[in-house]
């Protein structure tokens, strides 16, 4: 589904955000990306979304080599990906419902069909009762969940999440991860950037660890992570 082949990202000022990244995420797989802040987690997600271009190496997403992805194809590439952003990226000039409906509107869904899907997505994150509110009136955790509903509403084949549980208490974090696991079980590939060590340890999925732009550890799923929980 996602394949990094010796991918590096250098910025114009010479800063190397990612260096020689190699890994593959298959269909229906869920993996965490962890590491200190500035280790390159967000850059890695941005490369998959084609928000940034790799400086060298090949990045293949859904069979598409992103180096050869023309500007005009980028929107259609992004429609296959549901992304949850650290800063939520919600619009405060419209309701929660309209925020979640945005990807469907863009893809040209009928209002009726879109409404059904939006309510289903909001129901999954437990915000159905707040669909008419403006997201500005919601707490940080609720805003995050609106962002998650928007990411999954289009039923993408890939879900990327940047610190999706950052503002949530442990109980809500577990719920959100439950939603992600549901998508995993139907064949969606998920990449979740997080530094919530206890959450990662408790779920025991594959974990990729970044350090100063290098992939220093690729720990397979099912590993008893007890002795490494503090990392």
């Amino acid at each position, binding site marked *: 589904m996602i394949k990094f082949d010796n991918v590096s990202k250098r910025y114009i000022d010479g800063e190397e955000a990612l260096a020689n990244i190699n890994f593959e995420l298959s269909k229906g797989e869920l993996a965490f990306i962890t590491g200190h802040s500035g280790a390159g987690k967000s850059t890695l997600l941005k490369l998959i979304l084609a*928000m940034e271009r790799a400086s060298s190496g090949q990045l293949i997403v859904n069979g598409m080599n992103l180096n050869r992805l023309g500007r005009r194809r980028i*929107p259609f590439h*992004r429609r296959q990906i549901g992304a949850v952003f650290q800063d939520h990226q919600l619009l405060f000039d419209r309701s929660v419902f309209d925020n979640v409906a*945005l990807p469907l509107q863009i893809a040209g869904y009928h209002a009726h069909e879109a409404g059904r899907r939006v309510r289903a997505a909001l129901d999954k994150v437990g915000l159905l009762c707040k669909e008419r509110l403006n997201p500005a009136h919601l707490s940080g955790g609720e805003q995050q969940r609106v962002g998650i509903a928007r990411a999954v509403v289009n039923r993408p084949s890939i879900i990327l999440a940047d610190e999706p549980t950052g503002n949530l208490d442990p109980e809500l974090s577990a719920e959100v991860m439950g939603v992600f696991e549901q998508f995993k079980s139907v064949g*969606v590939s998920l990449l979740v950037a997080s530094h919530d060590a206890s959450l990662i340890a408790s779920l025991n999925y594959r974990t990729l660890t970044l350090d100063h732009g290098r992939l220093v550890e690729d720990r397979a799923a099912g590993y008893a992570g007890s002795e490494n929980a503090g990392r």
Partner: protein
Amino acid sequence: MPAASARKPPRRQGSAAAALRKWLDGHRMTALTSVRRLLATPVSSLLTVFVIAVSLLLPSLLLALSASLDSLLDGVQQETQISLYLDDSVTDFEAQEVSNDLLTEPDITTVRLISKAQALEEFAASSGLGEVLAALDTNPLPATILVTPVSTEPGRMTALAARLADLPAVTSAQVDSQWLRRLEAFSRLVSVAGGVLSLVVLLGLFVIVGNTIKLAIENRRQEIQVIKLVGGTDAYIARPFLYSGVYFGGAGGALAALMQAIVFTIFNSPLRELFSLYEGELTLLQFGGIDMAALVVAGIVIGWFAALFASLRSILAMQP
């Protein structure tokens, strides 16, 4: 459950009609959203429309004025005549003979003889100096033959006048086309000025509409970035702004048409009075439905193009 339908395409039937309906639905929604946005800031929207209207009005007035002058000249030119003033010694009978001879000339269509007596009569009636004239011993006015030539082209008229002036009975022949040529030159000047002003205004409108759209895009930067992130195409992003451009241009054109109609109504009656002194029976400044529609269409086209350039430039520059 996201289950089996995880990657089913959004379109239920693949028919072209359904796709077209979907596309039209999308446009209708965008069009309405765009109206709502403009109405949300009524004062600045109205100001923009007003500026566009005034810019369109100036060249439109000039071009319409030039067109009116042209049609006026066409009407007048057909009535252009050559006046032949006859020698005092020519009798009424001889004058009649001369005018009959002229009628056989191939270059001349009509001939009208005004005898000395008739001239005096007409002059007395139109000047109101009847009593003064009656007190005169002799009639000071010459007999005149008014000749309408076949060709109203200036060069040929001058040649004909020169030839007729050589007739023994004629003292002088006068072509009253000097003022006409001046009016023609003036009309050309107005038309050129209108054309040049149109170009200047076109540039100005591009800047005005383009800037307005650019500001609107800046104000919605956050929204555009989010739309890009969830897969909106550049065309989808630009669409509401193109509608704004069309609305601004169309409303500006309509307002310009209204203002021009008012200006022409105000000017027409004094102008008609002026020209009735010259025995003209003309509707001078014409401004009909087609001209109004042309102004609106011009506004729409300019607005759309300006918005297209502005939005493409701004949106392409935003690379998330």
